[in-house]
């Protein structure tokens, strides 16, 4: 460095890194701040600019020669190897010919940010534009030109720019936006389609803001972005979402999303509908769902969720829920588990459907199948028994007729002829019963009507009056006159006759017969019960055969084993059922169930 006394400009104390050079880039003077700025250990020891800027200094020498102010940004590599950008401001010193004062500013950060911004703009395909309404000029940045598909030397004007917009709605909207911007200074932000110079349709976003002077728009400028790819995927996503939504809505599917980590459960609107829960009553946690599940299914449903989270089982299950109005519905639930990179489940997304109708139909079908199976079993039994009884009587007739050919005393012959007649009558009776059973199997359900119970029982009691008087039975009927059940009149009469005659037949001869007929109206059915204090049936031994054909449980002379068989068939033909409770020596109760 030259001697500092040669200049009256003493910069030593300045906090700004500054130095003075001559036109040959020799350093004459410098501020103390300079040594720190250029990473010098104690004192600034550079003699000329080459020591600081190397080859770039030649450029400086050239510029200094022009004796004018200039500014330049130079790149340096710091001692630690970092990139460093220094802005140099050079002012000629007026009273010292050929000397310049140079001040330095570290603009590394701004430079990096600018460079990143440029890169981001490029990546985001963002261009800029401006319109000068005073000079009627228009500027498009290179990126804006690139998006339009025009060469970089393309010269745009406002009209040409607008013509790029797709004819129709898109062009009308940009004209409207630009007009409004000119007239009232309103800024705009629109997503529209342009047709590029190569004829390709492209989605762009154009943002513009007015430049106003004295309340008048003198121009406007803004940015122009290629959003084609993003927009198309968004539109596609919206289309798919809409399709999905329509599908989900029409399929009555509720979608839920369970954040396992934060124990948060999200439901879509359909879910609230499925569970009959008010949106405001649901606080979005797992326990809120658990509360809706039927108590009997809670454990199973919770276990299924747990197994799914543990990855042991797919979540595909069914459970019942109790809605706010108390009704019970069946839900089918399926879900997918999402695991993090360690294989730990963090999220469960699933769909619920209401399968109540299907379930009820299924149940009804199962019931019908069950009844049909039982009927088939009974018919099989029936065939076997009928065949046995027919054969018993026909073989008796055959045997007795054969014996008539023998030389037997006239008394014996008379006895055998009488027996043949009895066997024939029994055969006839079996055929009548057979016919009756066949009739029940062919019942037409449309014959089911509402029948007044009390009046029907009264009629049956009248017809059995003789037997009742003979047995001295005490009969108590607790049935409302207005009570009606759905049934087929002759069947109902037959059921009542059978049950009452059974009570009369199997009464305990050591005590007075007491008969009670009661009714109970439940939610879905009406129960009529016939209770007696007769000899009872050993149900432990006979329950499975109770309603079988030709099954008798007593040694009674009139016991034919067909009454309860027909009664059960009659009840089932009326969509009802019959059950028995009995204790030997105490009595029997038959409960008749009719659907309401």
């Amino acid at each position, binding site marked *: 460095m030259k001697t500092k006394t040669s200049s009256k400009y003493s910069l030593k104390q300045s906090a700004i890194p500054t130095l003075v050079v001559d036109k040959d880039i020799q350093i004459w003077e410098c501020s103390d701040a300079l040594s720190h700025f250029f990473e010098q250990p104690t004192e600034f020891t550079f003699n000329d600019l080459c020591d600081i800027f190397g080859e770039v200094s030649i450029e400086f020498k050239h510029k200094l020669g022009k004796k004018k102010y200039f500014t330049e940004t130079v790149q340096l590599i710091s001692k630690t190897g970092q990139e460093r950008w220094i802005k140099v401001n050079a002012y000629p010193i007026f009273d010292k010919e050929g000397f310049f004062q140079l001040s330095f500013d570290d603009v590394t950060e701004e430079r990096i940010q600018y460079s990143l911004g440029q890169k981001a703009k490029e990546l985001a395909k963002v261009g800029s534009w401006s319109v000068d309404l005073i000079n009627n000029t228009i500027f498009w940045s290179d990126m804006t030109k690139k998006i339009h598909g025009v060469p970089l030397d393309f010269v745009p004007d406002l009209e040409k720019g607008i013509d790029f917009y797709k004819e129709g709605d898109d062009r009308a909207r940009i004209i409207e936006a630009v007009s409004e911007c000119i007239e009232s200074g309103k800024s705009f932000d629109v997503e529209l389609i342009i047709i590029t110079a190569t004829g390709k349709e492209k989605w762009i976003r154009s943002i513009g803001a007015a430049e106003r002077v004295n309340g008048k728009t003198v121009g406007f400028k803004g940015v122009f972005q290629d959003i084609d790819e993003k927009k198309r995927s968004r539109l596609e996503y919206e289309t798919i979402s809409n399709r999905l939504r329509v599908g989900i809505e029409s399929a009555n599917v509720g979608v839920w999303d369970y954040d396992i980590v934060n124990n948060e459960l999200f439901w879509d609107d359909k879910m609230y509908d499925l569970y009959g829960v008010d949106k405001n009553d649901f606080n979005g946690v797992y326990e809120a769902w658990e509360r809706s599940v039927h108590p009997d299914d809670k454990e199973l449903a919770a276990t299924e969720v747990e197994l799914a989270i543990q990855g042991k089982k797919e979540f595909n299950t069914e459970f019942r829920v109790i809605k706010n109005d108390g009704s019970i519905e069946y839900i089918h639930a399926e879900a997918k588990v999402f695991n993090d990179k360690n294989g730990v489940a963090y999220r469960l997304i699933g769909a619920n459907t209401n399968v109540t109708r299907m379930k009820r139909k299924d149940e009804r079908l199962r019931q019908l199948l069950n009844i049909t199976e039982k009927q088939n079993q009974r018919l099989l039994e029936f065939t076997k028994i009928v065949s046995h009884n027919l054969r*018993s009587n026909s073989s008796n007739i*055959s*045997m007795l007729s054969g014996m008539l050919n023998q030389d037997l005393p006239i008394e*014996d012959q008379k006895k055998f002829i009488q027996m043949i007649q009895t*066997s024939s009558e029994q055969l006839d009776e079996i055929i009548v019963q057979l016919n009756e059973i066949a009739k029940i199997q062919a019942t037409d359900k449309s014959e089911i009507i509402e029948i007044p119970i009390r009046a029907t029982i009264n009629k049956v009691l009248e017809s059995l009056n003789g037997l009742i008087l003979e047995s001295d039975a005490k009969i108590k009927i607790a049935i409302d006159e207005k009570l009606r059940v759905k049934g087929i009149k002759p069947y109902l009469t037959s059921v009542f006759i059978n049950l009452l005659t059974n009570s009369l037949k199997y009464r305990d001869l050591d005590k007075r017969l007491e008969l009670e007929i009661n009714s109970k109206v439940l939610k879905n059915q009406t129960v009529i019960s016939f209770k007696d204090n007769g000899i009872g049936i050993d149900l432990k031994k006979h329950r499975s055969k109770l309603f079988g054909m030709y099954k008798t449980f007593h040694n009674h002379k009139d016991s034919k*084993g067909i009454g309860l068989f027909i009664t059960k068939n009659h009840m089932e033909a009326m969509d009802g059922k019959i059950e028995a409770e009995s204790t030997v020596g105490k009595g029997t109760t038959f409960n008749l169930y009719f659907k309401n």
Partner: protein
Amino acid sequence: MEEKKVFLVDDDLIFRTAATVLIKQIFPGYQISHFENGLEVYEKLIDLSENQGQLPDLMFLDINMPVMNGWELLEELKSAPAIIRDQVQVHILTSSIAPEDMNLSKTYNFIDGYVTKPLTQQDLHRVAEYAQ
């Protein structure tokens, strides 16, 4: 010598009456006793075996009977005193021509025959021949 005995087990009175006439023709001199179901005859057999009474030589057993049917009686007899199974010749006498009933009868080694109704003199002759 004691009088020979036949037990006829059937719930059908007409059959019992007619069959008795036929049995008497083929087994003259035999004493014929009637039982209406398995339980009645079971109690009688047990009583006889326990009190050194005279067991029947022949027993005609129906299958379909109330209270205790033929099969139920045979099951009971399996665990009854062996003397019953050893001394009494048991012939099923039934209107059932079902093969499953015929096959089932073969599973009891103390059954001596299976006769289907109507009962004829020829049937009884075969039983008599077998008895000798």
